[in-house]
């Protein structure tokens, strides 16, 4: 009644359509998030326990032996003094070892030797079932189970079926971590009236109940068939996460043979060359644009709207438009990277110009410099630190963008390799791709920093 006297809500809906989320959707969103919080907490705690363990080892065996020396060791106040905090390299190494350890543990890696989580059952096992017929007679049958790996294609031996009663023996093969359905018809329900399974290994079972037979469990379905699930262990399946040594083997194979007729490093090369070209184009146009914006009212006014508008648009949001305009060829990708780098470099160069101390400009003019000389000899070198910072950011963004663009459309490239492999569930190749992309991104950052230290040693010391 209250709403009916205010016409606003009704008329607003004519302008935009927003389905208010119902309580259930929101509740499920919140509960998912809460479960994630719990999961993250558990994972983090396990990782930190490992960290504490490594710390204890370090404290006991390493720290005592070579006492730190130098100025920092004499500081009595270190907690809160950022300059006294230095990355403990033992911790870094231990942290990486820990990640590989958990990876190996979760995948049942052979690298860990005897340290193993329970693996899924493999090989032969059997259980006995008891069935009853409409006359109330019972009979026992044996089910022989052969559990094999994904790669293995074993030939099933026929069950030694010397039928004495109405419950027949059966042999069945099943892949590890999968279930097999043994139909009641196969073991006697066709010929026997009222055929019903009542016991597994002597333990009573009802439809929709589960009985453990040692190496797995049996679920009696509502229709009276047996769904057999061999014990699936606590490790992850290679489909979700392959073991480190398997990834390494895939890496070696990938190195030699490539994937989909493209070499691994060929893919990386294509991604890199796109980044370099797009980034270079971005610098070529962005830096002069930034200078123009930093030096002239007109250019600042002219370009301000577009720069301020384009800056917060993530390059990934442009991918669909770029594909519509340029198709999936190289031109589109280079354009995308150009746009990703352009605004960053423009803003960096503009900031570089505005960062010039006015005393330096005055000094240069008083020393007789012309406008052109001021630009080339003072403003340009003075803005190099800002430009370099921008270039580092732009390189990082370009590298991320190229991978994403290749995920959408490419013939060659690191992103293309990942997405193609993921369609065939080749998780090992996906992981190799991710690791290589990470390493190259890191290498780019390190190289840029090295170049920065060499080319602009005065940075931060003006």
């Amino acid at each position: 009644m209250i709403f009916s006297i205010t016409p606003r809500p009704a008329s607003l809906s004519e302008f935009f359509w927003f389905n208010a989320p119902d309580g259930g959707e929101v509740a499920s969103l919140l509960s998912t998030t809460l479960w994630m919080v719990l999961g993250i907490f558990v994972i983090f705690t396990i990782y930190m326990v490992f960290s504490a363990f490594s710390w204890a080892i370090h404290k006991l065996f390493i720290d005592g032996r070579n006492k730190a020396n130098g100025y920092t060791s004499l500081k009595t106040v270190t907690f809160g003094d950022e300059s006294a905090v230095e990355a403990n390299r033992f911790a870094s190494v231990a942290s990486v070892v820990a990640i590989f350890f958990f990876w190996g543990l979760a995948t049942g890696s052979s690298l860990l030797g005897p340290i193993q989580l329970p693996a899924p059952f493999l090989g032969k096992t059997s259980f006995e079932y008891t069935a009853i017929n409409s006359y109330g007679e019972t009979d026992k049958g044996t089910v022989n189970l052969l559990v094999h790996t994904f790669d293995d294609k074993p030939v099933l031996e026929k069950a030694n079926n010397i039928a004495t009663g109405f419950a027949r023996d059966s042999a069945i093969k099943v892949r590890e971590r999968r279930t097999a359905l043994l139909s009641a018809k196969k073991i006697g329900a066709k010929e026997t009236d009222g055929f019903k399974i009542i016991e597994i290994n002597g333990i009573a079972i009802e439809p929709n109940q589960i009985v453990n037979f040692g190496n797995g469990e049996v679920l009696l379905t509502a229709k009276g068939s047996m769904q057999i699930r061999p014990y699936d262990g606590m490790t992850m399946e290679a489909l979700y996460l392959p073991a480190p040594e398997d990834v390494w083997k895939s890496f070696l194979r990938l190195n030699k043979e490539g994937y989909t007729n493209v070499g691994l490093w060929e893919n990386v090369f294509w991604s890199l060359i796109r980044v370099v070209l797009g980034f270079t184009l971005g610098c070529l146009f962005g830096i002069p644009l930034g200078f123009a914006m930093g030096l002239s009212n007109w250019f600042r006014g002219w370009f301000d709207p577009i720069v301020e508008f384009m800056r917060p648009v993530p390059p990934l949001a442009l991918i669909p438009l770029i594909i519509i305009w340029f198709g999936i060829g190289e031109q589109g990708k280079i354009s995308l990277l150009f746009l990703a780098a352009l605004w960053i470099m423009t803003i960096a160069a503009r900031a570089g110009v505005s960062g010039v101390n006015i005393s330096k400009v005055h000094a240069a003019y008083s020393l007789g410099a012309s406008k052109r000389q001021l630009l080339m000899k003072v403003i340009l070198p003075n803005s190099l630190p800002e430009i370099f910072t921008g270039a580092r950011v732009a390189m990082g963004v370009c590298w991320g963008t190229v991978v994403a663009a290749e995920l959408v459309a490419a013939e060659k490239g690191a992103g293309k390799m990942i997405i193609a492999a993921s369609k065939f569930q080749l998780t090992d190749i996906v992981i190799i791709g991710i690791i290589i992309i990470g390493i190259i991104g890191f290498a780019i950052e390190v190289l840029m920093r090295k170049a920065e230290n060499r080319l602009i040693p005065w940075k931060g010391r003006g």
Partner: protein
Amino acid sequence: MSGLNINDVSMTFELPNGGSVEALKNINLSVQKGELVSVLGPSGCGKTTLLNILAGFLAPTDGIIELNGEIVKKPSSERGMVFQQGALFEWMNVSKNIGFGPKMKGTPQVEIDAKVAELLDIVGLQDFADKMIYEMSGGMQQRVALARCLANDPDVILMDEPLGALDALTREKMQSLVLDIWKKTGKTIILITHSVEEALLLGERLIVMAPRPGRIHKEYKLPFAELGVGADLREVKRHKKFGTTRDEILNMIWNMEEEIMGRAES
């Protein structure tokens, strides 16, 4: 007419709220060639504005500046400037900083090198030619700034609190250096400072400015600069007249600041 003439210069800044501030009002001053003039005053008296007008970075709202008969309109290499700090080019070494002016004019490199070597000698940085600016202390940086300014052989050297950021000991040494350079080169130097002692030491003429509106309050003719050349500056400071003049000026500035405070409070 030779020398520097400041004719009836006024400077009024418009404020965004519609008001205006008279930073300078009817300044008249003539500086002869080779004079060493120090300008002193409380903050807000317009002394830096005056220097910026002399350098050509600002155009006065009224009046003109003449140097050797020519009207000053924009910055030029005949009016060299030494800034407080941060005006050196960090991406160049000491020699290149000093040689910047001649290089901009297209002087042959051989001549630049000779000039730089001579100036390094004058400011006492013979062994630092290849050092980078960020590797040097504040005092040494100001020596480079002095040398860079001298390299252009300007008619007038304008100094905007060049020693303001230095510690007391370095400052004393630099004061001697400024006097030496003045005597050796015979340049006209106009120096702005807010240290009364420095103004007394480094001024044949001392101009005291007063604020609101910025104007010349009083002018002194002093012997201390002449006495200080090549001498111990501490000796000069012990001069009886040095003490009395210092106290007189300190009182003067004290009263000006009191007046400003009083006006602000009422």
